């Protein structure tokens, strides 16, 4: 087990490159779904991934909520999510606001809650029986819905990021009668406390692509307060499907709130300092480590680890000393007796410095090679709050680096216990999509650089690559270029694939949680041969023929025990074996001392032909062949 090994980083309480970098904080999200009659119209979304032709707008909204939950289970499972219908026939909520039905209370999502959403949608009568639509539309429905949402969300932790997401087909719940204005006022009055409590309110109009949806009324609700974080402004007729899909669980993961993973001072030589915050915009999601439950009550167990002195059996209360080196073969200690290192010594070896970023200089961006980073980057943005004035200085630096196409090299110390490393800050400009939505933010990316000790050079290791490197002809390169051109993925982007390992893990886990039979899990992460053939059948063939000649292909794995399959077959076949034997002059090779250059299979061929044992490592085989050849000579 790795944690029995000495790894100072681990003992100091961190797992390098894998540490979760969030400051503690969570999302509380309320899905507030209009349950009035209009939402049960068929949406007709055939072309859109994730929805079927039969789906009604209601199903669309519930599916969005379900996928949102699933995505949160995978990526940040401490978030709390509620699902509430307004304009329902039945009334069920803590405060008994009429025509509001709380399907799921604000809680961490579970398999059960996902199953609840599954049953409530679809063709069954579940919704009609349990919830139902209110017989007639009323401005009060939304008013009560907002009220219920604000009650739910204020019960959660005060430190959470809070959002209410409203799904509706109703452009103007206030109606158009003489009372319209006062209705609007009354509804807005319910939205007010949400804004005061720093809750973000978003509206998702459920309209088919191409149709417009008047936002006049809703802008009132959304902007009752000022959303300083996102500054989102939704114009009339904004593209519904695009916005729905921008929620997590759909193709683009956009709706995570930003969470600073740390703050630091960026100091220039000579002492000038500005403040920055760091964010983890890329963080490898994992399936999480298993925990142990008490089999009796299914409660998680507390794990305590202790260092035990093997001589006395005592529990050590302080971090033990270390000896170096750690040899598995104790005879090695005769070559080098061990030395004892105290915790203090180890600490001063590790150069504890004050946390922060120290600027060392600048170099052209082209100096960074793809093998120079060893972990995911962090995003760096000015921190005006800690040191006012930082934003202006940061922007000046940012623009200067962009203008000269340079990156900044810094020494980076993450916390007092981490060793200093070198990082490069690369300035990035803001990118927006055609709808004006931010695709990538303005700021700097902190790239964690390798030291020379981390970098290996397999590409020039003659044991791996040999010494002769074939040159392609111009014609061959031209064919390859045509192929590259044709197989370039249109509209491709980083993050376009889902991780099948995680998808499978959570789908099966969901079934287990509900005591259902494990589902058949579809694996979509495969080369898309249909697309490749339709896009570049000719180019694929002509590239292959140009490098391999007609009708040739290099072998794959084949079936079981693939790589050697062909040769094994040859071994079985006597005539083939004899032919293969002729390929090499074993005696001459042995005389030149280069027998070792032969492949194991060739050695085995010889052994087999001479009725010798073929088992063992290459060294053994070599020995056997050499011995046999020597005996032949005599």
């Amino acid at each position, binding site marked *: 087990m790795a944690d029995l090994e000495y790894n100072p980083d681990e003992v100091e309480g961190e797992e390098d490159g894998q540490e979760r970098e969030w400051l503690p904080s969570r999302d509380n999200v309320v899905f507030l779904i209009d349950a009035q009659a209009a939402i049960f119209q068929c949406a007709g979304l055939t072309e859109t991934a994730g929805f079927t032709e039969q789906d009604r707008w209601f199903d669309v909204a519930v599916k969005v909520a379900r996928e949102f939950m699933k995505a949160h289970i995978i990526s940040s499972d401490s978030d709390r999510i509620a699902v509430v219908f307004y304009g329902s026939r039945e009334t069920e909520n803590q405060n008994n606001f009429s025509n509001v039905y709380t399907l799921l209370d604000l809680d961490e999502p579970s398999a059960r809650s996902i199953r609840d959403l599954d049953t409530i949608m679809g063709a069954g009568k579940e919704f009609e029986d349990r919830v139902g639509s209110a017989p007639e539309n009323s401005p009060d429905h939304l008013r009560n819905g907002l009220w219920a949402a604000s009650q739910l969300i204020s019960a959660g932790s005060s430190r959470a990021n809070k959002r209410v997401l409203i799904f509706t087909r109703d452009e103007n719940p206030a109606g158009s009668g003489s009372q319209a204005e006062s209705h609007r006022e009354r509804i807005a009055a319910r939205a007010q406390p949400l804004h005061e409590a720093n809750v973000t309110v978003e509206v998702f109009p459920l309209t088919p692509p191409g149709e417009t949806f008047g936002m006049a009324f809703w802008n009132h609700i959304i902007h009752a307060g000022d959303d300083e974080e996102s500054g989102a402004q939704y114009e009339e007729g904004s593209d519904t499907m695009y916005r729905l899909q921008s929620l997590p669980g759909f193709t683009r993961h956009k709706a995570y709130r930003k969470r600073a993973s740390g703050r630091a001072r960026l100091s220039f030589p000579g002492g000038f300092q500005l403040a920055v915050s760091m964010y983890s915009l890329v963080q490898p999601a994992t399936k999480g480590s298993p925990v142990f439950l008490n089999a009796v009550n299914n409660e998680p167990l507390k794990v305590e680890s202790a260092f035990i002195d093997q001589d006395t059996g005592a529990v050590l209360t302080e971090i033990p000393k270390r000896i170096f080196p750690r040899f598995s073969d104790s005879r090695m200690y005769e070559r080098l007796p061990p030395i004892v290192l105290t915790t203090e010594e180890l600490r001063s070896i590790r150069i504890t410095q004050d946390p922060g970023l120290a600027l060392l200089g*600048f170099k052209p961006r082209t100096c960074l090679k793809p093998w120079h980073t060893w972990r995911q980057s962090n995003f760096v943005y000015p921190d005006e709050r800690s040191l006012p004035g930082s934003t202006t200085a940061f922007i000046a630096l940012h623009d200067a680096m962009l203008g000269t196409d340079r990156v900044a090299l810094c020494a980076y110390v993450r916390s007092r216990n981490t060793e200093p490393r070198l990082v490069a800050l690369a300035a990035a400009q803001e990118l927006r999509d055609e709808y004006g939505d931010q695709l990538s933010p303005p700021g700097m990316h902190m790239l964690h650089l390798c030291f020379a000790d981390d970098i290996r050079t397999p590409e020039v290791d003659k044991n791996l690559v040999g010494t002769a490197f074939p040159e392609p002809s111009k014609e061959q390169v031209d064919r390859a270029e045509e192929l590259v051109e044709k197989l370039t993925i249109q509209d491709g982007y980083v993050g376009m694939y889902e991780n099948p390992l995680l998808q499978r893990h959570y789908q099966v886990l969901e079934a287990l949680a509900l005591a259902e039979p494990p589902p058949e899990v579809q694996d979509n992460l495969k080369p898309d041969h249909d697309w490749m053939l339709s896009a570049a059948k000719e180019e694929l063939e002509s590239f292959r023929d140009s490098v391999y000649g007609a009708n040739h292909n290099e072998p794959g794995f084949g079936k079981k025990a693939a790589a050697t399959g062909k040769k094994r077959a040859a071994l079985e076949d006597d005539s083939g074996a004899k032919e293969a034997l002729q390929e090499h002059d074993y005696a001459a090779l042995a005389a030149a001392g280069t027998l070792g250059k032969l492949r194991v299979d060739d050695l085995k061929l010889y052994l087999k032909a001479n009725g010798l044992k073929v088992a063992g490592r290459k060294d053994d085989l070599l020995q056997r062949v050499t011995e046999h050849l020597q005996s032949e000579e005599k």
Partner: protein
Amino acid sequence: MAKAITVYVVDIGPHMHMDIELVSEALRTCFLSKVVNRARDECALLYFGATGTSNAVHDEMSAEGPSGDYLHIVEEHSLKPPDQAYLRGLEPGKMPRGQGKSDFVDAVTVAADIINRALQARPELEKHNVSKEIVLISNFKERVKEEDVHEFVAALIESLKRPDVYLQTVSVDIDNQGSNDAGQDYNKEILDELVEEIRHKQISVQTPSELLGVFKCKEYSNTAYYAGPFTVGPDMNIRVKVAKKAKKEMLPATKLYSDRSRAPDATHEVSREHEYKDATDPDALVPPEERQKAYKYGKQFVPVSADDEAYLAYKPERGLHLLGFLPADDIPQHQFLKDPWVMVAEKGNEKSGVALAALVRALHNKKRVAVILFLPRVSEKTGGNPTVCAGTPVLGSEAGPDHLVLNHLPFAEDLRVAKFTPFDEKTEYLPSEEQLDAMSELVRSLDLCSEKKELLAADSTRNPTIHRFYNHAACQACGKEYPLPEPQEDVLVRETFLPNDQLAAGAKPLLESLPRLLPIKSREAGPALQAVKDEGEEEPQDARAAAFSLEGAAAPAASEVGTSDPVGDFTSMLKHDKLSTAFSSMPEAVETLVENSMGDRNYQKAASALKAMRAGAVQHSRSGSFNDTMKHLRALLESSQQHKNFWQLLMAQRITLISDDEAPGSGISAAEAAEFLEHPASHAQVDDEPAPMAMDAEAEDEFADMD
């Protein structure tokens, strides 16, 4: 397993004396690394320019009569696996300063002789996976004897070529200012003539840190992690191998050691044991058969049996597949995860070699990257770990073929896209022309690539921490106590982590104008970082170590507050009127207790110590000293990942600043004192902390069978 035999040919002649300690340190760490990491490797050490003479070639010639050839070359260690004796000879100050005259051609001839003799004596070393190397370290100031030199060199080349020796030359050009004397120029010509026809690498080092970092801390054999087909569409395979290109090197492995037992036969071994306890009943141990493995699904824990687990695993077919291509600009480097790989064509496979080279060049010409699905290994039990990689083309050279560098790309689940306010949204933050110009000027003047040579290039900058570890361990292994240099005196640390003096001096006026041009307001509340720094400056690191002994039990009468019984020490010192020592050494003891605490084991002790100090401070009117300690502690805990919870204990026990109410003159109101505890450091949420066991099984698995 691959193995290397290396002859180190080191110039110790009069010209080299200035840099000899640096050479000694580099070799010391190199030999230690060989013992620890490459136990089968063998090394010989040859000094030239030595005062005496001791080498086989000279002996052979003298056997035939008195000879004046190959003088002043000493075979310090013959070819064998290095051991402690190698390190002893390289103890600081121990490496000989030679007074003799011998040139590098003679020295390399002796080295080639050592290798050829070894090959004759042990034919198994002939095998191609035994790499034969000569490392030549010199400043090439001793002019090569001109007589018949070209014949000599030609003969030498022959004797190096037959065993396929790899010659690495390290030319020490520190303080040279780029001006070679005529002798050096001549020598370099001869050297070029020598290396031209053999495999070689020439390194020139211009700074002490480059010389210290000339050897890698650990050499790896480049084994293929994946060998098999790379599919390009349904009907084409290219046979390739994939090997690791970079991986973060950790400090070397050590073993836990306890000196609790004084018994002569003590093993000193320490084991790490895990206890599983019921959350509701902390005293109840739960036996293994009552433990049920589970995974978290949302708020639920889902129990998982061994069968379930096999079904949970993702088990695709292993392989390496092209998914498509993307414009290189669409895949910026900041999207890369984890460490990179290299994909090369199978050795000796002409067809695959041409195919991959054609593809690499096409990508290079078209400025595209390949999107590649990499499924290297799939186990029956735990499944496989799929990755989508960006394959960036890298053109080959004489030494290596065209290849792709593979970088992991994030999956949809790995991305956290958050929105940030555009810089131009709030115009009041936009810098003025003057500010922009100043910054652009600064970016240009702090140029790390100004003099042709790139400073701090990733491919040649060593990790100072690891080098420090090896050098310290190598010195200790000599059997004497060598104190660690302070970080600021450590050449490698200074040259790597501190700004280059010359660069900074060049930009001095600009740097000095920054605070005026870009005013930054400091918050009065005093950021924690600042506090830490100030304290740190007053108390150098080792003062803390010297101030008390960790082995508190061994310490005699309380002359200082130790960590074994801080309260006892403290009170006894107060009794003996040693007020200043008591109050000055207590904070250190508390800090050490907390920092060295395994989990929360020392917390109670540290808290009681603080309580005692607090009481003492009220009694002896030293509230300022206590309050400073608390502030320092708070700053410390704020930046500490694992000891945040100690603050919570202080909150629970209400150990806070001493207010005016308790001791007049502290300058702190009762409200301030109460508020002091409610600090961000206290908001560590328990549910966000990794479990003590938390370990990334996947990350471990992925590389488990590498190297």
